């Protein structure tokens, strides 16, 4: 079982390290809109999806990019956890 919190933890670590989020960035959170706030650009969005697919051995459909839930770390974690736990 992968709880949303477990997925979110891994994803947050990935985003922070890959997209150079400063440790003292108080604005950043698991509920921040990653695309709109500029933490992850269009190219980076592909990297985030590839990370989730590789980490959890799942295939995310292209349309997920436009799921309003799939814009924050917590939202993505919910979606991935839902897929994993069926």
């Amino acid at each position, binding site marked *: 079982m992968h709880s949303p919190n477990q997925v979110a933890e891994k994803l947050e670590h990935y985003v922070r390290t890959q997209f150079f989020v400063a440790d003292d960035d108080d604005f950043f959170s698991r509920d921040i809109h990653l695309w*709109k706030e500029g933490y992850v650009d269009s190219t980076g*969005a*592909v990297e985030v999806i590839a990370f989730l697919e590789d980490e959890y051995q799942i295939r995310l459909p292209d*349309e997920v990019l436009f799921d309003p839930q799939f814009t924050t770390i917590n939202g993505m974690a919910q979606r991935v956890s839902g897929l994993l736990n069926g």
Partner: protein
Amino acid sequence: MNYTAVPPRGKPLAPLVIGPDGLLGSVSFFQAWAENPALIDRIDGHFALVAIDDDFTFHLLRDPLGVNKLFFAWSPQMGFSWSPLVEDLRRLGYHQNQLWSLPSACYARFKPSEKLWQLQRYRALPYGTWEGQATDTIVERIRARLRGVFSDLAMRLGDVPITVTLSGGLDSATIAAMARQYFSDVEGVTFALDLDRDNVQPGEDLHYARLAAGHIGIPLNEVHVTREQMINQLYVALVHGQDWRDFNVHCALVNACLGAYGNLDGRMLFTGDTMNELVADYKPVAYAGQTFYPLPRLKPARLRRFLVSGLDSGDREVGVFHHFDLATVQPYALCADAYTALPDSWLADDNIKANLVRQVMGDAIPRAIYERPKVRAQVGNDQQTGGTLAAMVAEGLTGAHLKQKFAGLLDCDEAFLDQFLRAGIYRSPLHFDHIAADP
């Protein structure tokens, strides 16, 4: 069930449907599909089809790679409209938030009266499934697929005059050599920028395009344009190329120049596009101390799927040439299943494409092109003058400026564009409420 075609707004784009005979349009396709559910597995091509049935349900279908675009909008007041050109829907008065796309390789049923939106992906490309197969076997399969596609095209299109857009690279040279075998009237067209300016020598692309045409035995139509002529095509490149990202705009500009200045009336265009996506053969380009055309930081085997998915967006060839009433065929897109099946392990080798093409095409392509260092077609780099990238940088037409201009031309907010196109995919609705949301 009876179907009635729903014509697009704006200028219709004729579909190219490869499959059983008689599938020439939306009505014939949906009718035949209703009678034979397995039919969907046997079609390919470049198409965006929309029909409505007796039950007032709209049926939408888009080709497997998304070569043809299918934008649509719906509102209670204005009803349903679709077009291959998103600008047409804006001109009709739909709000930017009412603009949607049908994803590549998808079929959708849409029935507003019952708040129904059902999306179904009908095709998934095989990635890396030929891993472990003998090289000779793979080469023979690729050769057979290419021959099959050109044979199908010759049968469907008849012996029409063909012009191949020759960039001087392997992909387009292969298409020209294949076209030469299956069509009697074949010529090449190529683009050269800025040769009238002082100190600008013919670029490498032009040299290799001449070499390819001469070797294959076809005439070459050289389209020489000035920087000003090219910049004059920016509106076409943006609006009809349906994208603001520099790699697509720069390519669309070249095609817009070919369309505008190439005297190509009455000819059908064949291009070598999509091959680089199918084998993940792209690299960022360094120019003037900056890196252009950045890519996701993924290994080629992993990157490939996303590059292919990204063909969903941008209309740098079909859309741009359609503006000039020129029909375009991308033969590689018609055998995408074969190229995506190439083993993942092959993609790690920088020379994979040259090696594969050499075995498939042999001496039909000049040796110098196999041995040419890899470059982005028509773009130029720090070692080359006269490319589109240099001209665009000199004019300040890069990144943010292109996005701003695109938003202005479509009368959209720049912030909306980030929702409209993300990671190479145009936005599509997940359910009816998205489509019906108050803008």
